[in-house]
């Protein structure tokens, strides 16, 4: 009973085993072949990638080379040198021309700046001298005490003149600016400057080089010693580096007009 049934099943098993072995070998082959194929494609692809890259690099290098001077013939090189030399000369003369212009322009600017500078300085000086503006700087303070009222306006006129002689640029008496049109007046112990009565105890401020100003007043036989001979009058000189005088009162010029100079 058992034998006939057993034989086919055994054959079947053997057949099955052979089949599976074959299938395994086939799949193994397939794996190996696909592996080989992958290696083939990979190495060829790497080679071609390199070829493509080098090809482009080579073309670019060649393009640079054909544009370079090494490719030119001797004749062409001579012509190129000639052209470049001529161009160079033109450019060099252009540079020289432009440098000259730059120099000229710089000089013109300098001249103009100097003129402007001088004009500004002059204007400032004129403003100070004319008393148009308040001024400050080094100078001397002349303090005069006259308890017995013996001083006359002309003493102050002389004082102002002496100070101007000593280089005073701006003078103020009791904080009233002495300008080009100022005048001292008064009498009987009363001194007026441009209509302002000066209080007793005069303080004269003069801007200028302090040494020169002091010297002009303290000369032997100078104003200081002259004033000191009057009874009760004392004169003190103090140098200072930082003094200031106010601007003169504004004044209308209605009579005189400048005369135009014939050119």
């Amino acid at each position, binding site marked *: 009973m058992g034998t006939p049934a057993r034989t086919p099943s055994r054959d079947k098993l053997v057949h099955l085993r052979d089949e599976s072995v074959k299938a395994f070998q086939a799949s193994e082959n397939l794996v190996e072949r696909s592996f080989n194929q992958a290696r083939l494609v990979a190495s*060829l692809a790497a080679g071609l990638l390199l070829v493509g890259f080098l090809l482009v690099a080579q073309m670019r290098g060649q393009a640079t080379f054909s544009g370079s001077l090494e490719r030119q013939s001797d004749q062409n090189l001579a012509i190129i040198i000639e052209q470049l030399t001529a161009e160079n000369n033109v450019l060099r003369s252009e540079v020289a021309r432009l440098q000259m212009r730059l120099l000229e322009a710089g000089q013109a600017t300098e001249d103009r700046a100097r003129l402007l500078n001088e004009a500004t300085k002059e204007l400032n000086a004129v403003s100070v001298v004319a008393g148009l503006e308040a001024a400050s700087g080094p100078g001397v303070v002349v303090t005069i005490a006259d308890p017995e009222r013996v001083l006359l306006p002309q003493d102050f006129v002389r004082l102002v003149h002496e100070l101007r002689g000593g280089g005073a640029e701006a003078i103020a008496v009791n904080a009233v600016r002495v300008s080009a049109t100022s005048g001292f007046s008064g009498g009987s112990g009363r001194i007026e400057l441009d209509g302002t009565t000066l209080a007793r105890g005069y303080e004269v401020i003069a801007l200028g080089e302090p040494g020169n100003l002091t010297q002009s007043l303290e000369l032997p036989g100078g104003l200081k010693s002259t004033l000191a001979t009057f009874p009760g009058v004392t004169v003190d000189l103090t140098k200072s580096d930082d003094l200031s005088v106010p601007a003169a009162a504004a004044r209308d010029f209605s009579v005189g007009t400048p005369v135009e100079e014939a050119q």
Partner: protein
Amino acid sequence: MLALVLALALGVTLGLLTNFSVPVAWLTYLGVAVLAAIDACLGGIKASLEETFDDKVFVSGFLTNTLMAAFIVFVGDRIGVRELYLAAVVAFGMRVFENLGDVRRLLFRRWGWE
């Protein structure tokens, strides 16, 4: 096949993008080397179509051919036979055309056009 075309295109794109340029002094060497590389690639394609491709043979051939090509030109320069590079160019050029013809025939056979 498509992968190979893509690889070539990728190489060209890479070359264009990186803006790499061969120094002028190396131009002749690399020119012949590139020719040798093209020859090696065609030989590899031919071998793969004949199903005799071996990656070791291909890689070693690729490297030695390119290096030797450049070296021959270099030697020619050194010994005063500058025209030696012509020999390399002729040899590799002929091989390139031979391989190209073989590849063409093999492809025809494979596609059944013959």
